[in-house]
């Protein structure tokens, strides 16, 4: 499960540190004590920044770094698609082998495919993503992040 990409992000995290934002959330993974404080800043629908501080394992730290890399600069709908695809992959219990389409959406985040086989670690990988979604809901309103959830 420890792909080089994950280890790289862990050792050299992107965008770590707390900067100004429109909303801040604090999420905890009670099973292991992983914690993240995360802020989002929007310019219209564009994600201007995702800044974070946290402690946790390589998976949770690398995942926050990947999130920052992937989402900053994206429009909200595109970011939500990434988030949903990542969630799908992580909840697949190792059943999904990412295809080209998925790789295009997830970029570095496909490296986490192997983590989905480890139920205890899936939460680590998702911690920052759940925090981001929550912060976005606070910044822009609940319906902005749930709108797409009904898609088939």
């Amino acid at each position, binding site marked *: 499960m420890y792909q080089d990409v994950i280890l790289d992000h862990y050792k050299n995290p992107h965008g770590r540190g707390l900067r100004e934002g429109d909303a801040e959330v604090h999420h*905890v993974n*009670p*099973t*292991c004590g992983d914690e993240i404080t995360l802020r989002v800043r929007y310019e219209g629908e564009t994600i201007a920044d995702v800044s974070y501080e946290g402690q946790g394992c390589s998976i949770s730290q690398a995942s926050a770094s990947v999130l920052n890399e992937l989402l900053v600069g994206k429009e909200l709908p595109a970011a939500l698609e990434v988030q949903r695809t990542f969630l799908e992959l992580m909840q697949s219990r190792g059943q999904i082998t990412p295809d080209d389409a998925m790789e295009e959406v997830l970029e570095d985040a496909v490296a986490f495919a192997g983590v989905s086989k*480890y*139920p*205890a*670690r899936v939460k680590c990988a998702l911690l920052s993503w759940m925090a981001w979604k929550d912060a976005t809901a606070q910044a822009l309103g609940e319906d902005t992040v749930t709108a797409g959830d009904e898609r088939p």
Partner: protein
Amino acid sequence: MTDGRPVAGVPLDTEAIRKDFPILDRTVHDGKRLVYLDNAASSQKPRQVLDAMSDYYERHHANVHRGVHVLAEEATALYEGARDKVARFVNAPSRDEVIFTKNASESINLVANMLGLADEPYRVDSGTEIVITEMEHHSNIVPWQLLAQRTGAKLKWFGLTDEGRLDLSRIDEVITERTKIVSFVLVSNVLGTLNPVEAIVRRAQEVGALVLIDASQAAPHMPLDVQSLQADFVAFTGHKMCGPTGIGVLWGRQELLEDLPPFLGGGEMIETVTMSASTYAPAPHKFEAGTPPIAQAVGLGAAVDYLTSIGMERIAEHEHALTRYALERLAEVPGLVIVGPTSPEDRGATLSFTLGDIHPHDVGQVLDEQGIAVRVGHHCARPVCLRYGIPATTRASFYLYSTTAEVDALVDGLEYVRGFFG
């Protein structure tokens, strides 16, 4: 006989089924074949269930939920997999609505305690009322008596008709606007009566009361669908349904489980703890303090697999036919009086009776000497005995492995008892 799809209408192959239950081979009292008719107290266990637990301990055991090692992950998957199985078995809308307890009694106490600690609109306190029935097992009486004592709420109950059925004639006076919870048994463990859920649930819903159904004697014997019951909570117990001792189930509606406060505190049920305050995990974990009954859940999961492979419909049909036969045969025994419905409609395969003046203890003992295991006494439902003015009953109760030959053995045994004390 556990291969293939169960087909309703096709009778059970009890001979094959009995081979799955090692204990049924036993002899007692110098070689007498065991005739086990004490299934309402506890059922026997098929090899499939025992094997699942042995395999769990011999290959996969570890504590669940917090481990990153192989055994911990396997144990967690098996434990949570058992929750999935039980959820499917009772057609729960969500697996998170299935709470594992130690037995049905704990399940009921859990609800009683939650309601005593809850906020409005659920809170039971002075000025509110609790409704049960006169045919409840002590486990569905005493928790409510304790709650009433602690909170000042009033405990009310439905009485029984002479035929052994609930007397619902004054239902609107029993269940009122002050009623917070109505808790009743689906199938009585003494009378065998199958109670009319719909009428009670409808009235409870009218006044906004919650409904708890004690399905301890139903889950083992008939298809159980918590959604069609329309109750808020359903409780049952593992050891009566081919599962191990040490595990029970409480199913509860998700919104309720979210709103209600935790009861026992400890490991597993928390989100985060500091010395001064804690927050709680979402249900079901909020209600599962401490290391859960892991192997027992695995065993219960195997039990519901076993029952499902045979088919709950077929089990119900088998027991219904056996009950009809037993009612006919028992009617032949002079002095025998059935306590409970005397026709096979709307009743389970539990038959209580008195035999002239012979005390049930004596009936049971002399039957035992012939290898026939029945239960005697008040069966943890003493108010039923008080209601019918009898000190105790003898109870024969059947299960999927019971046979007409065993009914015949019982009838012969009772004849012998009559001769003995006559």
